[in-house]
């Protein structure tokens, strides 16, 4: 009876931005990134990629409530790096990983099909 429409989990409202950035005042060089209308699919891989960066001191994400479709990613870096740069680098690294995966997958499929023939 009170169920919200299913499309609300991936369509942005009017005026809602995809990413909202808030500086964390409690510690230096930290920021909260709120990504709207996304879930663990993106949150987990971004967090895992950020943890592999040696300049990142803290990286964690949470989906605060399952009925609110967004996640908050908290990043803290060393003084010479900014959280936003770390975030941007993580996304670019991910994209290169994923495109390599796509290439290798297509090669593997081709090899298998040629092996059959």
């Amino acid at each position, binding site marked *: 009876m009170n169920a919200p429409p*299913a*499309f609300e*989990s*991936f369509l942005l409202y009017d005026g809602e*931005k*995809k*990413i909202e*950035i808030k500086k964390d005042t409690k510690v230096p060089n930290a920021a909260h990134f709120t*990504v709207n209308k*996304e879930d*663990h*699919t*993106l949150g*987990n*891989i971004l*967090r*895992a*990629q950020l*943890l*592999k*960066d*040696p300049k990142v001191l803290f990286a964690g994400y949470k989906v605060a409530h399952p009925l609110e479709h967004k996640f908050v990613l908290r990043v803290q870096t060393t003084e010479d790096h900014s959280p*936003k740069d770390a*975030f*941007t680098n993580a*996304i*670019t*690294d*991910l*994209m*290169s*990983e*994923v*495109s*390599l*995966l*796509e290439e*290798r*997958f*297509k*090669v*593997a*499929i081709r*090899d*298998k*099909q040629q092996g059959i023939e």
Partner: protein
Amino acid sequence: MVQLADETRNKISLKENRIFDVHSANLPGANPGQSNHWDFEKFKTQLKINVIKIDDTDMEFDLIGVDAALANALRRILLSEIPTMAIEKVHIHTNTTMIKDEILAHRLGLIPLKADASLFEYPLDEDDAQSSENTLVFKLRVKCTQRTDAPKGCSIERQLNNSKVFSGDIKWEPLGDQANSLSDVRPIHSDILIDKMRKGQELDLVMHAVKGIGKDHAKFSPVSTASYRLLPDIVLKRKIVGEQAHRLQKCFSPGVIDVCPNSDGEEEATVVDARSDTCSREVFSHADLKDAVELYKIRDHFIFSIESATSKSAEQLFVESVKVLMSKCDVLLKELDESEQKMES
């Protein structure tokens, strides 16, 4: 528990009551003298993909050297974010059958359609007028009548025409110039039972199919299932012979442990195929075999299994899921760049 030896570093150990070392310890700064920094070249050497089985609809392949987060993201996207076409609106002109209107409409929505969703656009809003770019129109008109030539005393179903309505009775009505650009648009399987009727009952429906994703409704999910499991690893710590060897064989799935005569003439157990084990850990319920075996799972070796429920093959769906992930990352990057430009200006 700390894993020190290099070859066990990427293994998850399964003990009797607990699982250890689930998360990778290979983070920057974790081990002195070891740089675990993200390195694309290192990733290139570690990434391996082996296709095990592939046919028209299903596929099984190994994804090695990837993070669990990435494998899970691809699995989640396969399940819920790849667009497909499915029946959304059903205009019911006549339904005198025993199945209620809304139940019938629900069943029709779940029927998989043979249409490539990438050729269509998403419908703009709820009451958007149907157009040839975003809708497919199907008709279902079936009437159940008495057969005049049925022999006496045979079953009711044999005496009737169209007592069962199958998905093969759904006919496509091309809109606009769809007849030229699309061909062979129909439900994938023609033997799905939709409804049963008796004499005089009739179905007259017009159905509109639109593009959607699994997150909106499960009928739009393109896979019957997409799952992965980790590669198991079984290590025998001592020689196991005779009656114990046969018992050990029974503890694992068939084909995992082989018992053959060794050089001393006794029957010895060896691990032949750890991959097909389903990791029931049954061996820990035997007091004498508990200490003889160590069970592991390899942390970065994913055995993916994808079964397609659309006209696309499983490998096309995987490639699409990778593209969806790339476009999500693209959107995020663009937003970050825009917000940076706004802050500068």
